[in-house]
């Protein structure tokens, strides 16, 4: 009975590994392999249009960075909040990438209130906002304040 139990556990383990292995293949086939340009989505609010030079500059800087897989940004009233997701192996350097991108953006846009984070939570939150198609300015401002506060937490 113990031997059957062991075999059961081993086969479940291998099955899980296969399944997760297969799902990771799916992700890589969705990427633009040719130029490694990251998919981008920008939640814009009425203050910024996608033709606005500010968000265009931000887009250029983020698209230029090969290490970034995708990003979601939120811009409201002189505040910029960007959640990035690096390619799988680049995630080892994601803290460095985060700081470099923030510096570049601050220099290029001459804005002080820029937050760049590689934390998965913020990517999820911004993705959710995008899905819900939230346009109410007050709600977005509140959300941004909440996200910025969350980002400063250490424990």
């Amino acid at each position, binding site marked *: 009975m113990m031997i059957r*139990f*062991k075999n059961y*556990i*081993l086969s479940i*383990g*291998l099955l*899980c*590994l296969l399944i*997760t292995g297969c799902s990771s293949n799916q992700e890589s086939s969705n990427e633009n392999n040719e130029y490694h340009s990251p998919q981008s989505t920008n939640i814009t609010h009425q203050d910024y249009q996608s033709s606005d030079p500010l968000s265009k500059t931000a887009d250029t800087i983020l698209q230029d960075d090969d290490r970034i897989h995708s990003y979601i940004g939120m811009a409201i009233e002189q505040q910029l909040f960007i959640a990035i997701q690096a390619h799988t192996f680049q995630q080892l350097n994601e803290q460095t990438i985060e700081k470099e991108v923030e510096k570049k953006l601050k220099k290029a846009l001459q804005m002080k209130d820029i937050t760049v984070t590689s*934390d*998965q*939570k*913020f990517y*999820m939150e911004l993705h959710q906002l995008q899905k819900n198609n939230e346009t109410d300015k007050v709600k977005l401002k509140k959300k941004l304040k909440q996200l910025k506060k*969350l*980002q400063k*937490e*250490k*424990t």
Partner: protein
Amino acid sequence: MSQQSSNYKDYEQSVEPKRPLLKNCIKAFIIGGLICVFGQAISTTYMYFFNFTEETVGNPTTATLIFITMLLTGFGIYDRIAQFAGAGTAVPVTGFGNAVISAAIEHRTEGFVQGVGGNMFKLAGSVILFGVFSAFVIALIKTLFSYWSGM
């Protein structure tokens, strides 16, 4: 005398049961990996449904894993898995939890103060001791180094 003791050592080694190294490593890899995947599932759930970030989610994940370990240890299931998986169950934080909890449960008959309190930290004690002390030394060296190179 020393001839005898080295003879005895050789005899001891020849009679000691052989440990199937590769099989043990594979079992440890799979079970340890599964526990970590389970922990990752818990982390992702906490990040999605609650207000935890990647940085702060480690604490509730550990607490939840140890809670589950308490249930498994209490019902005697953890020991069966541990016999099979060796280091696969000892290395994750669940193994640490199991050591503390099973010692607490076992010694409860001796009373809470002497039995539970006195014996809980048999394994955990050395982990905490060497963890804290090595962290102290490393942090001290690093801080002094940063002062020295800062000057």
